[in-house]
């Protein structure tokens, strides 16, 4: 055991001892109350059992459980002891709320406080103005001492290095230790659950439930309510307002984050509904920067999840057709076949099940081929009212769906990289998949498969004997800039269909596009989708384009926030950031050194900035305005909306400059930059300058 770990363990023991001592010194009432509730629990159980067994001796218990707490007295709260007095007080309270005299007294009090505040403000303002003026004056001395710290800053850094940094390191290391050893946190949570009376509240709640379940004594409800108020009040009175405020703020933050997540998940559900309505091929169009590749990527990510979910739902239905079939055994054999490479796609599953069926029909061995399934008792056929389904047909469908659901491989095949991160949890039985676009990123991640266009070609291939040819069955195909790959009729005018090499006219890509659902259909559902994008639909030949729906992005929308009640924090951020940044760059223009004040301000503002940035990255979204029309372009466009959540699509999913490496290589080889280009000498270009444009037009003018 190393020294740091020993220190952390000692620290944990000390903290535990402090917590226990705190409880002994300051939370004795909580423990007395706990004793009381435990006694009450015992009598409640006795009462419950006696009533259930119809032993009439519960009178004494009734008095015990329904009376107010003897430990926590009612005098400490504003609550009256009887319910009739409570209702009277409630009546008076609401009457007082709208009573003009009461309001007058209240606003007089508010006015007095406001006046006091203004007086303090008036006193402080001249001092502040003076201070700002002095700082500005002292900082107005220009210098070029690059990255040199001023003396006060040096002193602060030295003190911080000696005191603050070691403490910070200790805390950071200790936090890591606690994360690795969560048992300490659990112990502390239990200690505090006892200290803050939480355990008593739970025990009292259960006791009263047991009592109420057999007595239906509504008159005792008020006493229980009073006891609950006393229990909670005990905690609130014990803690300082600052700590209570921090706890309330944390709970408030959690609540609004949960609301924000629900909003984002609702948007995702709407997007899924939108995608479900799309045909197999979809083309996203929009001018540069309209987020068409972002839209395509987002839809493809949602589609992969939808395919897995669809497979899972259909799997459940197949299960119900033969509810007593030992599916787990079948799954395990299928998994083994997948591991050994016996099963690697849908076609191989068909062959595998067909072999199983042939073996069964030849030998009739249900124990081996059907894992001991009792045919005599449960039968081999399922009548769906449409048809009689044979067990082996259902097994084939089940195996295919299971394969789509469990394969630990991306369903995306694309001509640019897309990252996804869904996880399959397998405890040795039925594996479960976790998708969560909005949960924190798991450690596991995977990327889309490289799209070899030959797998989509039914005719000639670029690589004549490409081993992957014909292998593609199901999944999500994503092609960006489809027009550049497939071109349109005008651009293909010179290309011949009977050429020796593969080209857009003889590779039968369009035929594949028209028939792709045949290989991907399982249980009458096509597990295939093709998403493409291009700036204008006409760039892709009409034969293929007519198959798809065109999504025109009209507007990519402004950034919005799903997190509620953030406007005030954002206002403070805007105020702090805008004020600081103008001052900071003015300072940097004048001076090159580092000063203490700027160091502190930058530290504070950067933290505020980072908080705002993280909030927008986690809960920000934009709404794309889309016009959806048929690929034939003869229909009236439908107006649609698509939600792009920042946390889903911008978490290193793809790069918008996916072809940038091509241009980087060209630019690096050229050895010339923007500053090397020639400039015009005057506002009117000279003949020589015009000729330097290498323009077709200018060349025509000068007959070159």
């Amino acid at each position, binding site marked *: 055991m190393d020294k740091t770990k020993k220190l952390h363990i000692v620290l944990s023991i000390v903290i535990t001892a402090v917590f226990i001592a705190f409880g002994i010194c300051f939370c004795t009432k909580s423990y007395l109350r706990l004793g009381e509730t435990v006694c009450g629990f015992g009598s409640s159980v006795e009462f419950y059992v006696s009533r259930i067994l119809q032993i009439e001796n519960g009178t004494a218990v009734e008095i015990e459980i329904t009376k107010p707490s003897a430990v926590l007295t009612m005098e400490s709260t*504003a609550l*009256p*002891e009887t319910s009739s*007095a409570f209702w*009277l*007080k409630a*009546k*008076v*309270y609401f*009457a*007082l*709320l709208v*009573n003009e*005299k*009461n*309001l007058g*007294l*209240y606003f007089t*009090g*508010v006015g007095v406080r406001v006046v006091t505040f203004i007086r303090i403000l008036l006193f402080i303002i001249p001092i502040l103005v003076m201070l700002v003026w002095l700082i500005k004056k002292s900082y107005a001395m220009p210098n070029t001492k690059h990255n040199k710290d001023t003396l006060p800053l040096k002193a602060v850094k030295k003190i911080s290095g000696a005191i603050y940094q070691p403490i910070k390191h200790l805390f950071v290391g200790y936090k890591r230790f606690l994360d690795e050893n969560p048992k300490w946190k659990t112990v502390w949570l239990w200690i505090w659950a006892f200290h803050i009376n939480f355990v008593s509240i739970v025990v009292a709640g259960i006791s009263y439930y047991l009592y109420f379940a057999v007595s239906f004594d509504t008159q005792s409800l008020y006493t229980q309510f009073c006891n609950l108020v006393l229990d909670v009040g005990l905690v609130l009175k014990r803690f300082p307002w600052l700590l209570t405020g921090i706890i309330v703020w944390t709970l408030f933050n959690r609540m609004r984050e949960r609301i924000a997540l629900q909003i984002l998940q609702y948007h995702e559900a709407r997007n899924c509904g939108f995608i479900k309505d799309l045909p197999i091929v979809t083309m996203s169009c929009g001018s540069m920067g309209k987020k068409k590749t972002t839209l395509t990527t987002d839809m493809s990510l949602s589609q992969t999840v939808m395919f897995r979910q669809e497979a899972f739902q259909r799997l459940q239905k197949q299960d119900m057709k033969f509810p007593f079939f030992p599916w787990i055994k079948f799954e395990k054999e299928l998994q083994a076949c997948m591991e050994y490479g016996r099963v690697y796609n849908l076609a191989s599953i068909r062959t595998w099940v067909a072999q199983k069926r042939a073996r069964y029909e030849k030998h009739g061995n249900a124990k081996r081929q059907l894992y001991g399934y009792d045919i005599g008792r449960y039968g081999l056929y399922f009548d769906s009212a449409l048809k009689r389904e044979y067990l082996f047909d259902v097994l084939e469908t089940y195996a295919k769906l299971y394969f789509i659901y469990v394969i630990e491989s991306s369903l995306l095949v694309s001509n640019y990289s897309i990252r996804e991160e869904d996880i399959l949890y397998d405890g040795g039985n039925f594996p479960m998949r976790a998708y969560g676009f909005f949960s924190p990123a798991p450690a596991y991640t995977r990327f889309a498969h490289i799209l070899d266009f030959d797998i989509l070609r039914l005719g000639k291939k670029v690589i004549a004997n490409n081993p992957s040819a014909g292998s593609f069955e199901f999944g999500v195909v994503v092609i960006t800039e489809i027009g550049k790959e497939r071109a349109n009729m005008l651009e293909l005018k010179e290309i011949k269909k009977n050429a020796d090499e593969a080209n857009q006219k003889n590779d039968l890509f369009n035929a594949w596009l028209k028939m792709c659902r045949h290989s991907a259909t399982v249980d009458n559902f096509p597990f295939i989708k093709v998403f493409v994008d291009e700036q204008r639909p006409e760039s892709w030949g009409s034969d293929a384009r007519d198959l798809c729906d065109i999504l025109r992005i009209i507007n990519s929308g402004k950034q919005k926030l799903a997190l509620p009640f953030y*406007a*005030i924090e*954002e*206002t403070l951020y*805007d105020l702090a950031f805008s004020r600081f940044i103008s001052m900071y760059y003015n300072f940097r223009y004048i001076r090159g050194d580092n000063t203490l004040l700027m160091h502190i301000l930058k530290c504070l503002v950067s933290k505020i900035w980072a908080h705002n940035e993280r909030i927008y990255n986690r809960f920000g979204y934009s709404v794309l305005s889309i016009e959806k029309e048929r690929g034939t372009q003869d229909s009236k466009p439908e107006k649609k909306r698509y939600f792009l959540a920042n946390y889903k699509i911008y978490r290193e999913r793809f790069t918008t400059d996916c072809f940038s490496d091509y241009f980087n290589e060209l630019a690096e080889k050229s050895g010339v930059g923007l500053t090397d280009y020639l400039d015009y000498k005057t506002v009117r270009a000279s003949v020589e300058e015009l000729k330097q444009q290498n323009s077709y037009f200018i060349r025509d003018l000068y007959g070159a």
Partner: protein
Amino acid sequence: MKKAGKKILAVMLLMIFVLLFGCFVYTSNRLTGYPKDLTDYERVVFTDKDGTMVAFTEDGAWYDVGDEMILLEIIDYFEGVITMERNDTEYRFFAVDRDTISDEGTNSFFVRRSGSG
């Protein structure tokens, strides 16, 4: 501009929320300020905004019921609730604080008349 408007609205809503919350707390605090016993009310006259009068004596209170003044007998005082009776009819008042009482029946507030008590 829209964003600035939203921020101003948010600040205004926060101020309203704080004022309302403060009002709730202030009012509930007032309800805990009732006197420990009724000696503070002896020989004190309370009137509501219509001039209706409640005048406390040592063991009762004269109450103006419109046509006449009736003498109510105090039978109980507990946690600010003053229970009085006349001819088997119960009257309940709530002692908000030293200077204010409220009649449960009419829901009106009576304020200590200056100079009384």
